[in-house]
């Protein structure tokens, strides 16, 4: 019940009631976008944005840069730690 599904906003359906069409894995559904609209992100600018949809409401904007950063960190993690280990060993024997 607490899980959400990522979807992409494809069109605005009703500007007054903040309803948008969201493509969720190929299924298009009307979704309320009240929680992801503010002065910085007016409804008109939302098309193409990725959002997390829960029970018919877009609850959060998906920050793609942050997602990419997390993945980059994860990818580097093993290598970075291995390198630090070598540095530590070299440092200790120097």
């Amino acid at each position, binding site marked *: 019940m*607490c899980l959400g599904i990522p979807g992409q906003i494809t069109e605005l359906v009703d500007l007054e009631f903040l309803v948008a069409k969201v493509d969720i894995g190929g299924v298009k559904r009307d979704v309320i976008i009240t929680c992801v609209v503010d002065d910085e992100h007016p409804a008109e600018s939302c098309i193409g944005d990725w959002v997390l949809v829960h029970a*018919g409401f877009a609850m959060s904007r998906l920050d793609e840069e942050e997602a*990419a950063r997390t993945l980059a960190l*994860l990818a580097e993690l093993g290598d970075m*730690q291995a390198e630090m280990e070598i540095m530590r060993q070299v440092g200790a024997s120097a």
Partner: protein
Amino acid sequence: MKYMDEFRDPATAKKLVAEIHKLASTSLSQREPLQIMEFCGGHTHTLFKYGIESMLPDNIEMVHGPGCPVCVLPMARVDDCVAIAEQPGVIFTTFGDAMRVPGTRKSLLQAKADGCDVRMVYSPMDALAIARKNPEREVVFFALGFETTMPSTALTLLQAHREGLQNFSLFCNHITTPATMRAILTDPDLRLDGFLAPGHVSMVIGAHPYDFVTRDYHKPLVITGFEPLDILQALWMLVKQFAEGRCEVENQYARIVPEAGNVAGLKAIAEVYETREHSEFRGLGNIGDAGIQIREAYAAYDAEKKLGLPFDFAQGAVGYDPEHLKCADVLRGVMKPWECPAFAKTCNPQNPLGALMVSPEGSCAAYYAYGKLAKRKETV
């Protein structure tokens, strides 16, 4: 979704698991294994689905928490739902999970089979649409769940208010995560060392409501997403905190969870809801300040007041779960599902006796689905 596959990459998972093992073997000085609670049932599901528990070192143990809205629902609340659905002229609407939870008399699904108008909806807005189409009937939406679901029910109520709809109401059974966590932390039977905090609750409330966990109880906490790499990274972050002697609230799920939460969602929650003095949760008993009720200003949309229901929340409901079912102990993390005498015997997903077997997010359903029917299998 663009990044879905990347967050499930087995090679990266392997690296992370190796890092967790390395940290655990070199930096954890405790004799007893670290007990880490994943609060959210969604996390429990990921742990099982990807076999993450079996990849962890022996000195890290996961404790499955009570963070499944359906699972913490006392039988008395299901009875109340059935009582509402049985009232003449009522259309009772709810999320699918709640339909199968047993009450003492029957589930909502059985009530439907017996002729009540019980309808499953995907969204509270669907319930509102039913109310618009049926002006002569009272449409009640069963509003339950932690903070993830609260903004959607609050915004739906506000929409009904804007439209002046007279035949829509909420049966409000929402609960708050921080107060539930506090109840767990004060439970003398539980020895916990840290938390994986729920990602989608946190997307609404932000990171700061957890500050008391580190400040007052000195337990590190990491807000976590639901992909396998999210969970592994969060575990790595948590073990790193232990290794470095830190105790902080950290946010692994920053791509979804803003530090301050969701402003519009929090505003709707504050407008519509207030704290209820007493609330009973299955397994945790009465927890002060965790339950939520509709403010007096919106009493016209409060099913409790509108329909004059046959129960008294103010006194705290009586859960009366059957004694032979150990749902309460499993929910509190002091018993594993396979230790319950009914588990996988009389209680199974086809015929669930307890709520933990109903929802896929429930730990009994997760244990059953992934074949962990007994201890010997769990350790394989």
